[in-house]
């Protein structure tokens, strides 16, 4: 009787844990998609504005530092690689600490490079013509930068007290931030 009861309880526990996991996964993807939708709308706005004011955008774009942005792509890809190493199924939460810290520090490096880039670009925002591009540019890249900064902080927190679920949640979000940058980079700087 006692054995049957404990089997039943363990089955109920497993089912509840599975349901909680599915719920967490759904919330994670709602969060990821809300980020993608926001950045999708912002980037579409940027492209529409560049069609409406082509000369202003072409002139202002000359002052964007695509070299720094390319360096930041490499930094963010390296960070994403470390986050993916941390999220491997066979990695124990404690072993995931080092790659999580590396991913966070590379995120901080991204922020540092972006601040240096901004310091060179902010001087060109004076004219009204350039302001049209730079307002959108700072809005989109600044919003992304805040995501990177906040994400790096959360990665450090998770590295301090790692758990498999939190690692999966945060590294997935981190990759979404990475994905947004990969699409944003050519749209804003190159194409």
């Amino acid at each position: 009787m006692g054995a049957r009861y404990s089997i039943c309880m363990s089955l109920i526990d497993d089912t509840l844990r599975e349901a909680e996991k599915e719920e967490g996964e759904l919330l994670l993807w709602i969060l990821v998609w809300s980020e993608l939708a926001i950045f999708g709308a912002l980037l579409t706005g940027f492209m529409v504005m560049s069609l409406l004011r082509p000369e202003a955008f072409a002139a202002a774009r000359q002052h964007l530092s695509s070299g720094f942005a390319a360096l930041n792509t490499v930094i963010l890809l390296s960070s994403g690689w470390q986050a993916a190493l941390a999220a491997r199924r066979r990695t124990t939460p404690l072993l995931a600490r080092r790659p999580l810290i590396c991913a966070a520090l590379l995120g901080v490096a991204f922020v540092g490079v972006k601040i240096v880039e901004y310091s060179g670009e902010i001087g060109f925002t004076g004219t009204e013509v350039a302001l049209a591009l730079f307002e959108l540019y700072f809005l989109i890249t600044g919003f992304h930068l805040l995501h990177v900064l906040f994400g790096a902080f959360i990665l450090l927190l998770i590295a301090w007290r790692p758990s498999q679920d939190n690692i999966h949640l945060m590294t997935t979000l981190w990759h979404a931030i990475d994905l947004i940058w990969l699409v944003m980079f050519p749209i804003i700087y190159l194409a």
Partner: protein
Amino acid sequence: MNPTPRREMLFRTFFALIALAICGAAVATFAANIPGAIASVLVLAFLKARLLVLDFMAMRDRPGVLSFTLFLWAGLLLTMALARSLILPAFT
């Protein structure tokens, strides 16, 4: 101790992503005036996004709908960027 297959795969993906990033930057810097350069840069960006989704986000073994919608998001925005670059001369 040998590295696990997943670790090796992630390293290969990382290496491919860096190579694609360098190719994209090189095309944009040295071949910007050549026809098709912008399309090449955008295709390289899509390939990077695809690798990131499949390998870093571990989507290769998961339902295809999720990865497909992520590809769709990236593909749609990059196609819009390509269309913009093609119709931009008409606006100037």
